[in-house]
């Protein structure tokens, strides 16, 4: 059990990360229409508590993989916004030197081993990376984030099976927002309950649909300690509501495939809002919180300014790191 101060500190840390993600994405929403961030944008709004809860629970012993919906995990892991925005603007100062854009963030030095624009495709490398950790006995734990759509793909089942039979230190984090693009799970999943099925595997399952980051943090901690004890993978099954369109920065409740009412209900438990309220309840002052928010907003704005003025990659960089030389054509 954490003492009161400890709990406050934890919640402040969690809030700082939530707010960082939210304000970075709000800045994207503001600037995307300028058509300068020429990259297909998949926003995390609504899901922030999952990335923050899990990444914080794993801390420095964590290594992370996720999908093209990568902002929250990247920001929760790295805490930085300079290379983040530079990457969205396709600049040479970007996280991956302007090569990847929003769908392909990566930050190996902080343990964020990669994201991918191919659904379910980071699951297999996540399992392999967990094997490497096990063999090297370095105490590191992999967390791989994926959507309910990734669960449709063979890569998911093969990876779950492989990790289970090999007893690897990996945390599967399924972020179920009920849709793959616009197609609901009911049209894609030939079963009612994924957790029920996963429980059949040698893998501990934890599920929740809370947007309270502290609850997710604690769930992830339980999952990790279970993993350490049983030497089996764990599976976190978490529901959330995607606020915006599948890709892009707008709402799309008029498209007809889902209702604004449901959104409103989830908005009442918006992860950033409720965490803010909790902080106040725990004794933080409105002013203190505002100061923190201001710092973050300032940092985000500053990163955008820097990103905008940074140079595009030099054309000489085209062949860098390609492991490919085709001498005739150069």
């Amino acid at each position, binding site marked *: 059990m954490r003492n009161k101060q400890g709990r406050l500190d934890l919640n402040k840390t969690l809030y700082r990360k939530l707010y960082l993600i939210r304000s970075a994405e709000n800045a994207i929403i503001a600037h*995307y229409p300028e*058509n300068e961030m*020429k*990259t*297909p*944008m*998949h926003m995390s709004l609504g899901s922030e508590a999952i990335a923050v809860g899990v990444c914080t629970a794993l801390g420095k012993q964590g290594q992370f993989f996720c999908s093209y919906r990568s902002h929250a995990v990247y920001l929760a892991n790295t805490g930085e916004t300079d290379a983040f925005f530079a990457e969205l603007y*396709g*600049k*040479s100062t*970007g996280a991956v030197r*302007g*090569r*990847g*854009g*929003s*769908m*392909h963030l990566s930050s190996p030095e902080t343990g964020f081993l990669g994201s*991918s*624009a*191919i*659904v*379910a495709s980071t699951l297999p490398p996540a399992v392999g990376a967990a094997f490497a950790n096990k063999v090297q006995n370095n105490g590191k734990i992999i967390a791989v984030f994926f959507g309910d*759509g*990734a669960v*449709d*793909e*063979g890569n998911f089942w093969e990876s779950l099976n492989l990790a289970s039979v090999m007893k690897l230190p990996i945390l599967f984090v399924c972020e179920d927002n009920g849709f*793959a*693009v*616009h*197609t609901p799970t009911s*049209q*894609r*999943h*030939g079963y009612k309950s994924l957790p029920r099925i996963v429980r059949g595997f040698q893998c501990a399952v934890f599920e929740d649909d809370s947007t309270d980051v502290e609850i997710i943090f604690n769930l992830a901690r339980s999952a990790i300690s279970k993993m350490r004890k049983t030497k089996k993978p764990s599976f976190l099954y978490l529901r959330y509501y995607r606020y915006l369109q599948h*890709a*892009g920065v707008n709402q799309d409740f008029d*498209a*007809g*495939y889902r209702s604004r009412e449901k959104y409103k209900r989830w908005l009442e438990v918006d992860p950033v809002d409720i965490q803010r309220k909790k902080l106040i309840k725990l004794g933080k002052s409105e002013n203190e919180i505002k100061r923190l928010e201001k710092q973050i907003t300032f940092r985000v704005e500053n990163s955008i300014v820097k990103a905008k003025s940074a140079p*595009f*990659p*030099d*054309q000489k*960089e*085209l*062949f860098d790191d*390609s492991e*490919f*030389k*085709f001498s005739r*054509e150069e």
Partner: protein
Amino acid sequence: MTRTITYCQAINEALLEEMRLNDRVFVYGIDVGDHKKIYGSLNGMEEFGPDRCFSTPLCEDTLVGFGLGAAINGLVPVNIHLRMDFLLLAMNQLVNMVANYKYGSGGKLRVPLTIRAVVGRTWGQSYQHSKSLHSVFAHIPGLKVVMPSTPQDVKYLLKSAIRDEGPVLVIEHRLLYDFAGEVQSLPSIPLGSGRILRSGKDITVIATSWMNVEALKAAEILETAGVDVEIIDPRTIYPLDEELIIQSVTKTRKCIVADLDWLNCGFSAEVATLISEKCFGNLDSPVKRIGFAPTHCPAARSLEDIFYPNAADIIRAVEAKLDLKPMDISREDFYNHVNKFKGPF
């Protein structure tokens, strides 16, 4: 009758017409049944009910195999993939199963399966959403590969694909969707027939898919310098209209292949080999190839611009072949990737 419609409308017409003609034709795949209607190419599908146009789970390999099973059992499936790169998940069913299923049945089963896949630069899609792969599919016996560049061609080649008794891949370029062009009513355009997109006498440019847009622009600019470029659009990558290519190059004695793919072991190599063999002794210079830069596709525009081949590359290559001094093209109005396309996809 000639009408002007977009490439996207042409796809839509082809499907509506074939589905009205043959109630065994159906369309399916990831995102196929939703309100976006695959960039509008599936408008009006409500007419056929949910058994003939529907969204599926995300499972590319199984979806292609599903089409195989439906095809051998009496239906005519059209399976859509929003990005060519996703077909890499389906190579097992495509190459190990679909390509040879008729053969393996002793010739008793037919596989009238059409696969539509979208390729092409839009903006910042980067290295996992940018492959063409027609060279790979053309390498595999049993698969036909079509790559139309105009509304006319996409309409009739898609119809031919659907009517074909074997598997056909129809590769559509995303940026062409909004291009309008004249479409005549034709009985059909057979798979395997190329087309002279522009007649010329000085040099032959063989271009695939979007590269025809770039080649036309290059030809227009080169015309102002007195250079008369012939452009051949093979339209189908396999089977290839070899005669058309050989005739053109025999006439011009100079050739550039502008392919929307990597060069190494690609379609451009096949065409260059064909010409080197059939026009042996009748060439003024070796065939020049233009294609993707031999690296991964970058997101940043400054790099995207040099990863993808374009009209300027064609102009420079033509000048080199004809021993001309480089023209000033700084004020030319090239296709503007920066402002034409707005995201996210």
